[in-house]
């Protein structure tokens, strides 16, 4: 009786571009019926820097440090996709030691990025303490990179043909120490967060992404694997030394925010295993193949793909035989996940938006490029 006499209407609410949970500059236009999300339209481009256009005006080696800044939480995977494409074009064979060092860099970056995810995801759901714990461990990874290449965040560890330089003597013992420490710290996070009833209530069954929708929107990485799909570029098309190390592709069948969180927790444990194997088996030898100062790949095209912490990061390079690429296309996984976000948001409450957005772990730097 009462309901029929009350007039209701949908409201459009702008969330962002300066909203703390958007982790950068993202605007969501939410169409709300009361508290329920009827539709969502992500508005992007606030961080567009024209990186692909810049690539056409730089030489091949000059463009490498720009790639660090695309997905700034995981510089190594951007480097990896770019050099993979250029090396495919040139037919460069990378020395074994460089391949192993690259895997170490990639996996350290994966852990660092997932730690930021755990930190911010927990923080968004009001578990502030976890933020400080996770950032504490991430600091150790930053220190390792600083020891190796001097930089901490945008490291440019990779070079066309190898890595920038060999690791210093003290690197391996410190890396071993880190591999021994992190699993213990992950148990601590589990005690803090994974079994926490408030955390579970906010994430379990929330933001469902069915596997067929995930494929349709070309989702990859933990977003796809959290929907129970075992797809990982490291396994599907092994690059560097991934065919020589033993690791599991972590999946979770839940299709919800909790599933995506648990996949990342599992992946950090696998990354530690990969790093430990690489540290133990690190071959001796050169760390960079002989590539001339002037890089001129023959005319043609190549696509390099790596498994970044967020999913498939790809780089499509077209060459006309000159010193600069004709086209550098960067295929960033967050772009695809954001396109699929409305599918996950519809029907959930306004309060769940923050949890669902956090669970796909976007980096606006790579969405907008």
């Amino acid at each position: 009786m009462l309901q029929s006499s009350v007039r209701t209407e949908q409201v459009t609410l702008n969330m962002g571009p300066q909203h703390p949970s958007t982790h950068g500059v993202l605007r969501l236009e939410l169409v709300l019926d009361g508290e329920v999300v009827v539709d969502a339209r992500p508005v992007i481009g606030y961080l567009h820097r024209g990186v692909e256009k810049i690539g056409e005006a730089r030489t091949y080696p000059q463009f490498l440090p720009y790639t660090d800044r695309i997905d700034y939480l995981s510089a190594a995977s951007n480097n990896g996709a770019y050099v993979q494409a250029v090396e495919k074009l040139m037919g460069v064979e990378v020395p074994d030691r460089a391949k192993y060092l690259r895997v170490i860099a990639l996996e350290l970056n994966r852990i660092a990025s997932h730690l930021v995810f755990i930190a911010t995801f927990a923080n968004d759901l009001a578990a502030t303490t976890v933020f400080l714990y996770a950032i504490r461990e991430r600091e150790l990874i930053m220190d390792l990179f600083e020891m190796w290449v001097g930089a901490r965040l945008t490291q440019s560890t990779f070079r066309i043909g190898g890595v920038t330089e060999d690791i210093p003597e003290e690197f391996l013992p410190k890396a071993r120490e880190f591999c021994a420490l992190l699993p213990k710290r992950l148990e601590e996070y589990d005690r803090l967060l994974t079994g926490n009833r408030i955390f579970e209530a906010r994430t379990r069954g929330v933001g469902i992404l069915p596997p067929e929708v995930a494929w349709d929107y070309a989702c990859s990485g933990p977003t796809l694997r959290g929907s129970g799909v075992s797809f990982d570029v490291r396994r599907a098309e092994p690059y560097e030394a991934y065919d020589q190390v033993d690791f599991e592709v972590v999946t979770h069948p839940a299709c919800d925010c909790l599933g995506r969180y648990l996949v990342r927790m599992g992946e950090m444990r696998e990354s530690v295993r990969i790093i430990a194997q690489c540290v133990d088996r690190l071959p001796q030898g050169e760390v960079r193949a002989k590539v001339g100062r002037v890089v001129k790949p023959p005319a043609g095209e190549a696509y390099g793909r790596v498994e970044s912490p967020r999913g498939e990061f790809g780089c499509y390079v077209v060459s006309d035989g000159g010193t600069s690429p004709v086209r550098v296309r960067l295929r960033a996984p967050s772009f695809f996940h954001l396109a699929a976000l409305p599918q996950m948001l519809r029907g959930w409450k306004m309060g769940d938006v923050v949890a669902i957005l956090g669970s796909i772990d976007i980096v606006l730097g790579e969405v907008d490029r």
Partner: protein
Amino acid sequence: MMELLQKELGEALQACEQVGKELRIRVTPQQLVPVTRLCKQHGYTYPCDITAVDMRTELVLVYRLIAPDSGEQVVVKVGAPRSGARIPTVSGVYGAAEWLEREVYDLFGVRFEGHPDLRRILLTDDWEGHPLLK
């Protein structure tokens, strides 16, 4: 896949080349939607990327479709004029195409016919021109 495409398309298949795991083909704009639909039916369920390259003489649209089980890739290329290009949308075949085509429209000016919501995506709505054209 190569034989299948040759059989289905006949003359409309302008080029066909296998490079590693990539099957690179070139088709006419009219064949684009049928070809992508055919690929999807044959296991290429992962629309990895859609982009374009300005080759100065023409625009080349590049559709990278991947079969997740085998890792095989079909790279479908379509030629288009550098200005005023009109290409049928594949957003009815793959959901991911909706945003990817918006980006190609934004940066290259290609109009995708039948697209449900063809607006700029990275640049502001009042931006003039398409910056990735040479």
